[in-house]
């Protein structure tokens, strides 16, 4: 007992007199089994994994598939009611302002994407290994992609290059002029195109052709027609791409990553998902949302009736143009052709109904992901198709007075669609052809804006205001209120 008492007291006294160094050591706890932000990029695998993380944010592009259509004359917002994604309805009606969930997500998610690319580029000199140059090139391509999205939507945006910034620094950063952002995008794409493989080592990775095609598009958005023509010609001359024989089958999962694919955002249905974090999904949320509401019948799956093509778009097509049916599903006409039409049902959403659905990106049976399958469509978003490259090249050449080249390119696209060639005697012919070829793919609004036609075609469009979307007001507030809002908002 004596000994026990003594040892107890002794232990207590030792504890009472703990040394500072012992404390320090005891309190330095490393997070178990977790790699840290600051000690990463030690192996080639680290670079590769960070790059995958940077690719991840491409999946946010489904928003552009919506907004690029809904903001234009191609589609209405649709949905369950006007309170179902009210931000899209505001964009549809050109009543959008500084408070808009979808626009804020565009802003946030693209900044996250470019931050992930910057994180790689910040650490690019850590180690050397074969293949590093390609990883750096892919990171630059991705950064350019995200900045291009931002500049298309918002114009001047803060330009952050090769570093991460903290809260304090964020308060000091101003919006960079659009021209500076474009210059950085051009530089990144040029750098990338010099290194990237012509053929991707894995389906989904950026290629030389993708970098050049985007570079061409970026030139075109700035009306740099000479550079655009040269760059796009390089893509065409590379011979890497060709139009597929059938336009109708272009958008099925089975036909993904074909000869016409310049760059796809990859999606899969192999992982489930739920509402609440659309950016956490690995599936394409737009496709399920664009499905037919409460549809019960063959071929298609049920969805949320978002992004519904307009009668006006339907009417714009020539009736002999097969691209009309491939682009637009006339639901009642479709049902009438089915074996037992009376058994097929669907519902009309209170958010609007046109009788038409986006037939390129729509939930089809056999292309259904894990639950909730409205959110997990495996259908890739074809953000850069070869026909887009051809039509952009046509536009650039036409603007440079090379009308015969332009005509040949336009008719190459028409030929594949099975419609007769036409004379290209005005720039509007090319613009129209872009609409026939690329409707439903999220390009229309930005095409109308860059070609100065938006006010003509979009109800409620105010010139001098609606060319740009407003910077989300809360983002202005969170950086100290120093940024001016875009004009008109």
């Amino acid at each position, binding site marked *: *007992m004596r000994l026990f008492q003594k040892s*107890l*007291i002794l*232990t207590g006294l030792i*504890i*009472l007199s*703990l040394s500072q160094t012992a*404390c*320090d050591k005891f*309190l330095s*706890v490393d*997070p*178990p089994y977790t*790699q840290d*932000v*600051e000690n*990463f990029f030690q192996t080639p695998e*680290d670079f590769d*994994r*960070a*790059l*995958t*993380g*940077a690719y991840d944010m491409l999946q946010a592009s489904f928003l552009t598939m919506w907004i690029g259509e809904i903001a234009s004359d191609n589609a209405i917002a649709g949905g369950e*009611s006007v309170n*179902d*994604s009210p931000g899209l309805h505001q964009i549809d009606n050109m*009543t959008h302002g*500084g*408070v808009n969930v979808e626009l804020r997500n565009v802003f946030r998610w693209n*900044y*996250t*994407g470019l*931050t*992930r690319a910057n994180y790689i580029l910040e650490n690019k000199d850590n180690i050397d290994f074969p293949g590093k140059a390609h990883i750096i090139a892919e990171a630059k391509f991705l950064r350019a992609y995200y900045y291009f999205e931002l500049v298309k939507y918002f114009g001047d945006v803060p330009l952050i290059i090769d570093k*991460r*910034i*903290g*809260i304090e620094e*964020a*308060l000091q950063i101003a919006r960079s002029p659009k021209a500076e952002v474009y210059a950085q995008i051009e530089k990144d794409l040029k750098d990338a195109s010099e290194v990237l493989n012509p053929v991707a080592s894995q*389906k*989904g990775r950026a290629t030389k052709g993708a970098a050049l095609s985007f570079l061409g598009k970026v030139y075109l958005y700035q009306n740099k027609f000479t550079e655009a023509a040269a760059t796009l010609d390089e893509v065409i001359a590379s011979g890497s791409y060709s139009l597929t024989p059938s336009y109708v089958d272009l958008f099925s999962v089975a036909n993904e990553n074909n000869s016409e694919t310049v760059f796809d955002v*990859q*999606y*899969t*249905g*192999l992982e489930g998902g739920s509402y609440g974090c659309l*950016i*956490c999904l690995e599936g394409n949320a737009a496709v399920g949302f664009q499905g037919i509401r409460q549809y019960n019948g063959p071929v298609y799956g049920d969805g*949320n009736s978002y992004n519904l093509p307009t009668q006006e778009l339907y009417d714009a097509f020539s009736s002999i143009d097969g691209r009309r049916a491939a682009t637009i599903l006339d639901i009642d006409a479709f049902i009438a052709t089915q074996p037992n039409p009376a058994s097929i049902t669907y519902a009309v959403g*209170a958010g609007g109904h046109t009788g038409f659905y986006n037939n390129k990106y729509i939930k089809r049976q056999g292309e*259904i992901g894990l*639950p*909730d399958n409205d959110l997990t469509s495996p259908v890739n978003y074809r953000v850069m198709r070869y026909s887009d490259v051809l039509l952009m090249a046509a536009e650039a050449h036409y603007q440079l007075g090379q009308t015969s080249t332009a005509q040949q390119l336009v008719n190459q696209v028409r030929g594949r669609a099975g419609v007769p060639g036409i004379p290209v005697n005005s720039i509007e012919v090319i613009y129209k052809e872009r609409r026939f070829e690329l409707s439903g793919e999220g390009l229309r609004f930005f095409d109308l804006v860059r070609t100065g036609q938006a006010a003509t075609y979009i109800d409620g469009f105010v010139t001098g205001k609606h060319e740009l979307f407003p910077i*989300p*007001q809360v*983002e202005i507030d969170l*950086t*100290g209120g120093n940024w001016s809002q875009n004009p008109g908002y």
Partner: protein
Amino acid sequence: MIKKLFIQLLFIGISGFAFSQEMSVTGFVKSEQNVGLPFVKVQVKGVTTGVTTDGTGFYRLKVSDAANSTLLFSLTGYEKQEVKLNGRSTLDIILVELVNNQQEVIVGYGTAKSKEVTGATSKVNGENIEKMSVARVDQALQGQVAGVNIATNSGSPGGSSNIRIRGLSTFGDNDPLILVDGVVYDSEGLNALNPSDIKSINVLKDATAGIYGVRAANGVIIVETKKGNINSKPQVEYNAYWGQQQTSRKLDLLSAQEYAVIKNEMFAMGGQDMPFNNTNLGIGTPWQDSVFQTAPIQSHNLSISGGTMNTRYSIALGYFNQDGIVGGPKSNFSRYNARLNFSTDMSSKLKLNSVLLYSNDARSTLPENGIGSVLYNTINAFPNVPIRKPNGQFSYMEEVSDIINPIAQMQNQYNWNTANKIVGKEEFIYEFNDHLSFTNRVNYNVAFVDGKVFSPLVWYGDGKYANTAINDDLESPTVELAPGVEINRGAAVYEERSTFVDLTYESFLNYEKTFAENHKIKGTAGVSIFQREGSSLNGTAFGIPNNSVAYADISANTAQGGYLNNVGSWEFTERLVSSFLRAEYSFKEKYMFSGIVRRDGSSKFGANSRYGIFPTASAGWLLSEESFFKVKFIDYAKLRISYGVSGNDQIPNFAYRGLLNGEGVYVFDDLITQGVAIGRPSNPDLKWETTRQLNIGADFTFWKKLDFTTNYFIKNTFDLLFQPDVTAIIGSYGPGGYPPVINAGNVSNKGVELEFAYHLRKKKDFSTDLNFNVTTITNKVTKVPDGVDYIPGAGFSVGGDIATRFQEGYEIGYFFGYETAGIYQTQAEIDASGVVQDGAKPGDLIFVDQNGDGVINFNNDSDKTYLGSAIPDFTFGFSFNVRYKAFDLSGMLYSAIGQEIIRNYERQQPYANQLGYMVDRWTGEGSTNENPRVTTESTRNNLFSSYYVEDGSFARLKNVQLGYSFSAAKLKKIKVDSFRIYLSANNLFTLTRYQGFDPDLGSSGALSAGVDYGFYPQAKTFMGGVQLKF
């Protein structure tokens, strides 16, 4: 008179004969209420040994010199009595309960008489907790202590409450430090604690809680479990109650007929076809009647306590079971408890205190208080649709994709959690002498927490978000693993097993000595080392056979090759090393001074700011001891003041470090490829929040009956830890990404607390105790992070505006939106209003032009304003306990006044059902100025406005109890010490104007408080119980 004389003579005679002889003295010790007091220590003065009274208060003591001996009677909480025996062989005694100021309170690493205390503390006795007949101690504590606001997070069985000591002081975790016999319990962990095991609860509210340093900023709650008594026979106690619960409220929803009429009008107004040809649909389906049910509750506690010469013990077993009023057994809480408190003198100088608490608690839950919860679906379910279709299938309600049949939902929900917890303490106290003692103790808290969720294949109708099957035949979705290789997903089960191990070693010296009679010195010095480790392993398995819960286990999965099945895990370690010093000095027990310093080192913070020092000073003046103090009716008067600094470290572990725990997953070659991404950016300068608190208080006793305590406090919290919404350009808003944790912002709480306790024990048969307390707190954000105007909080409706904010000059989480001023009756009124309200038509809400620019701006916040807050202006607690002869009646009333609630349980979709008030909607000029028109077209009526804000004030009779105690004399014959039966009711009535299920609506998040998504209401419970001692 003659009788009295006779007795006196008899005594004298006996004393004469008994001189110098050993004899037995017997007697009863009773309280003023004439109830036998057990555990009273009875000893002869000058002799250390003695006996204790049994359950009836009876004692028998051998006395060697009955003529000259003096007997000492002592019991904690009662005044000591010395009685000269004068040779008597029987001696009955009445012990008087100590007035509050003499009671012992726990102040952290020591105790003090409340007379000596210089801080603001409150004490609640275990019986007042047990009497509330609830599952959790936090529910029982509501309204009992001034300055402690408790709001219920959920009325479901096992649902937690949030405890706020002296207001909301931070954006993040506001929970106080809860210590049970010295062991840290978190708010969730309170599920494991049996309220019947509690002896007392002490609440440290002011800066003197600073003895707990970096964890003390939100106050400290010290819970002590029951102990045995020296030299007492085993006392067996059995307490039990049984009850039935029902909902305290159902909402007034539209009948099928009203629904059809209103929906027809809504569609017609929107220019669409009317959905109902026939509106004569009667009442329709009263969904609430099927969702709510009566549910049983029961509790049993069995304990034995006693002691020998140098050992005390108390052991207990407990069982509690409660079904939910929504979902019955699907929303259940059950608990088994076992407890052992054991103390022994290992030698004359070394004492051992040992505590062992085991608990097994199990909880099953339904989705609650959110969009998609059972009650949210119940409120919005269509009344024209039956629960089941004629073919027996559940009806679908396909017109709204996120409203599902609540009955089907409950049936398909399987969500269980169990926790096995072993908590204990081994404490060795070595007493060098009467003045100096040395305590060394080890505390442990080991918890094994298991969770399981079974997701069967279900079908709620076309397009429903909650479907897991692909059709109503419950066919499974298939997954393509590789081209041509498809497997069924089937039903899934998720399991998680987590282990938490807390270890604390504490070592401290206590010194107490009075010098020259007038100078009393107390000192405490020690260290504390704390470590918490947690780890978890979880897995999901697919292909559960037969879609049946009978096989809901990972082991039963049939997923081919284990494909699809996935696993996850996490681990953490956190540590705290602290040293503390407290010095107290009092002069003549009139002037008291105390100083505390604590130094904490926490692994939660980076090397730049790992250590913090927290000092506190306090003083007291016992005015009533002064010779000049001659106010007759004031028996006791004390003034107190304290000021000090404490901290709050409740942030995630490793928050100062940037972690690659984000999600960076992409698809290459059609396969999911795992990459990495930054989860949360780093902040190496991150440090604890600091709270500086001033307390000025006074304690009085008037007429020996009325205790009164008041405190005024100013509590300022600096460097708030939080993860505010940050700018997008730092790039943290990806999947798995979070904003960084930063120190920014200040909050101030000022308040007044009043506590009254009235005791009337004049007559033998009658006694009354009344307790009343009032708290008022003014909460204000005094600073937000630089460059930020406000921090957005909870959203309104689905994808709607932000309704709550953290903003300088306002309460935390105040409501911000458009103020309404009735309904536009005519187009002429709109035209003449002088304000352009875009899109306004007759029947729409009139928004107030706050900035007076003639336009209601819907693009920014310039026309939005303050619409209220979830923080009450006043809270009141009132309890009474009246005894008359064998009957006792007690009750507890709680009231919170001046808070608002956001009505956010209405799905703003055309087909969703609505509340009864829509019957009085606007239908034309002059019809109403309250509720807007109905239409399917786009209006701004569903923007967040004062229309959706309601007064949340309420008063609730939390408990009322009527008991009857059988006569002790009769019970004695059957060897029973006491037997009491009672009837009791919880939440018998609630006075409120709030329309929702329950105005007592808490939230663990400071910014989501007061947002009602269809809150699981507290049950109204009727119970009967017994209390038996032998």
